[in-house]
């Protein structure tokens, strides 16, 4: 696996998405968002949000990208 943190976070997020994919789109998106929110430190989340905005989420699976978009939006609202 890459030692580049951004790439590593993309990989990790996609791994989470792969597990929840079987639950169908809506549940999978919610479950990925919930998992990242519950287990990732804020700086990791900030890094993946930055990656999303800088690279358009390239490399993120569709469900995962959607989940991160939801989390990013929520983070913005809270801020």
């Amino acid at each position, binding site marked *: 696996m890459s030692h580049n943190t951004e790439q590593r976070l993309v990989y990790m997020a996609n791994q989470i998405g*792969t*597990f929840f*994919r*079987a639950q169908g789109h809506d549940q999978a998106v919610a479950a990925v968002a919930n998992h990242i929110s*519950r*287990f*990732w*430190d*804020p*700086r990791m989340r900030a890094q993946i949000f930055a990656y999303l905005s800088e690279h358009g989420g390239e490399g993120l699976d569709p469900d995962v990208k959607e989940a991160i978009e939801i989390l990013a939006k929520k983070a913005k609202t809270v801020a």
Partner: protein
Amino acid sequence: MALINEIDYGTPEVKSDKLVELTIDGTKVSVPAGTSIMRAAMEIGNHIPKLCATDSIEAFGSCRLCLVEIEGRAGTPASCTTPVAPGMVVKTQTPRLKALRNGVMELYISDHPLDCLTCSANGNCELQTEAGVVGLREVRYGYAGENHLNDKKDVSNPYFAYDPAKCIVCNRCVRACEEVQGTFALTVDGRGFNSRIAAGQNEDFFDSECVSCGACVQACPTATLMEKSVYDIGQPEHSVVTTCAYCGVGCTFKAEMRGDELVRMVPYKDGKANHGHSCVKGRFAWGYATHKERILKPMIRAKISDPWREVSWEEAINYAASEFKRIQATYGKHSIGGITSSRCTNEETYLVQEMIRAGFGNNNVDTCARVCHSPTGYGLGTAFGTSAGTQDFDSVDQADVIVVIGANPTDGHPVFASHMKKRLREGAKLIVIDPRRIDLVRSPHIEATYHLPLKPGTNVAMLDALAHVIVTEGLVNEAFVRERCDPAEFAAWASFVAEQRNSPEEVEKITGVPAETIRAAARLYATGGNAAFYYGLGVTEHSQGSTAVMAIANLAMATGNIGRKGVGVNPLRGQNNVQGSCDMGSFPHEFTDYRHVSNDAVRSIFESIWGVKLEKEPGLRIPNMIDAAIDGSFKGIYIQGEDILQSDPDTKHMAAGLEHMECVVIQDLFLNETSKYAHVFLPGSTFLEKDGTFTNAERRVQRVRKVMAPRNGYEDWQITMLLSEALGYKMPYKSAGHILDEIAKVTPSFANISFELLDKVGSVQWPCNDKAPEGTPVMHMGTFVRGKGKFMLTEYVPTDERTGPRFPLLLTTGRILSQYNVGAQTRRTANVAWHEEDVLEIHPHDAEQRGIRDRDWVKIQSRSGETTLRAEITDRVAPGVVYTTFHHPMTQANVVTTDFSDWATNCPEYKVTAVQVSRSNGPSEWQEKYREMSEQNTRIAERLDAAE
């Protein structure tokens, strides 16, 4: 304090609801039907002389000393082999019995040295005692005849000696090896006068199959089998009951002392996890506590290439605190964190997480369970609602089918393995799912009904295939599922596993295990009676570790094998306090009892008790800390009792992360590998030097008792308090018991646990609260903790660590019986005699292809790195699979492992690494460099005055 001598009832306890009343020496006694007369007599305090009987093994009836008279019966039957009967009237002492016993004893003594005064067992010898009891006053036969007094002593075992001159051939050692340990290494060789105890094929003990568990030594009634430490020191004079600090079985021991010198560790009969048994580590490998390499003074240095400088505790603590404060002032409060240890007590672990959350002001706390059983926490928490195993160890006594997957209990959890083997010898069926042919697959009197030698990394495919058979062949326990589980989730799962791609025939292509074997194993699990899963790191340490745990939970729920004795899902925890460290809020996202930090109500409990505002966001996990260090946002770490450089994967990445930090504080016994990158070393205390509790793999909370003063000056929890105070967060604890009282106050499942309760009842399994005042041996009875059991869809996803032309073999790592984890403790004991280096197991076919001969030096290379070690050619591993251990730092097996990890928890994928193996001439470049760095970074410049 006095020496604790448990009562020996002579024969094992019999469990029966039917009571039998009889009269012994004029006293009426009621005992369970099937009990021996000997035991019944002891119940009323009448000791019948005996030599070949002891209550850890079945009666044998050979010594002829325990004879009794029974009214209405002819002769003088042996009381050990004669069961009680209603109305029986027994006499244990008559002139006839006295004469018989005297004659028997006279014969024994006629071939026994009369060196009692200089004998190592003097004062603690059953033969000596019984000779006194029967009133032996003379031996009429003399000593000139043929005897065994000059037989040669076997001192080959590092820990005990066998002196045949003192042997009375009572057979207790042979039976203990068979019945208690289950190794069958001993026998009686020869007949009549020539009968002698023989190890293996008449080999010396060290070269035989003996596993040095100590059961024979414990069973021996004379000085024939005796600990060398007793030879050296003498008989102990007091004992303290405490808990072993090695694996997750959590054996209870008597630390037998002379003053403050430990003479020996003897397994305690009343230990609920071990029932008086032990293994080579807990029984004998405690010498590290006084090893010359142990560090006893604090040390600091500005740069890791500087020599260490011994300083006072005050200077070391103030230096560490000032560095942490400087780092936080410069880089922000989230720039530091810490790691709790599964080797330390619950109280110490609780304090480290408290210091980090309240003192550091962040949630950057993690534990070494991250790299072993974190998927267990996630998986079982999701399925059942509790992050822990479901049974007690004794539950195995009622199992009819035992599934061992990804675990090697005879090496990793030897005392429980002996318990399990006993049940298997009674007829329980065994299914082993493991790439290697572990010892349980075939060993004396045990043979697995099915061994499924799957390819590493395919557990989930295998578990889904087992589920496929159960669902499609109508083997689901529908009544259980209907009553106990969520019906919609079950329906979705059943339909998923029933898909053709999950059939054994399809999965055979993935796992390499014939479909028919998979089908047969599934049928046995579902229909063979009480079926129980036991699993280890071969399940969790994969990119799908959490998925596999959930897949096991699915199988248990689908077949109704949960919520009663004899069944369940049982994680075999690696280190002594893995369960406890997880329970104590060591993970960055949760407080004690697995409650998330974002839960306002829970947070407020801790805020009010600690008097500070706490963060509601999760902190960094260990691998994330290392990544953040390399990225520059994480600069300081406090590590209590863990050697992340040696134990965690991808050593080069770990080393780079540590090198990027400005202050690494290590609290440990030795200058471990991580300390080579450290700036502050705080000497820790051993389990013998502290008070507290450990929680074993069956959720059993047990006392750790201080048997000697800490040689380093402080117990570990006291050191954490010093550091915390220097950081500005003062803790109020006066003792380890005081800390446990706070844990009980803030942790619902620990609500009733205190030192007082544990001193009274011995141990309890959490939850222990008002609903279960003395604990909970079996969980999820009647209902799951989360309500309805949750079936999860467990799609098999192949690991991204793939073999190919460059790396055609799969490496899987593990451990062996004599060594423990990174070996920091066991390498500093005589256990190295069994394992002086890590070796690479390789199949003869793979070795032949590469021109490798047994014991050749070989290079093992992966995408992460390379190392060298010696090859051991064996068909224990399948073609295409190689195996090694990670006990020795100069091998650095984790240079080779990758940073792929479990999707849910980041638990590393130690069990699957694509590698190439080739012949080699010597150490790799990394090993050479590492050796140089080690020498440079472990120098100690100045010694403080010893009187300081």
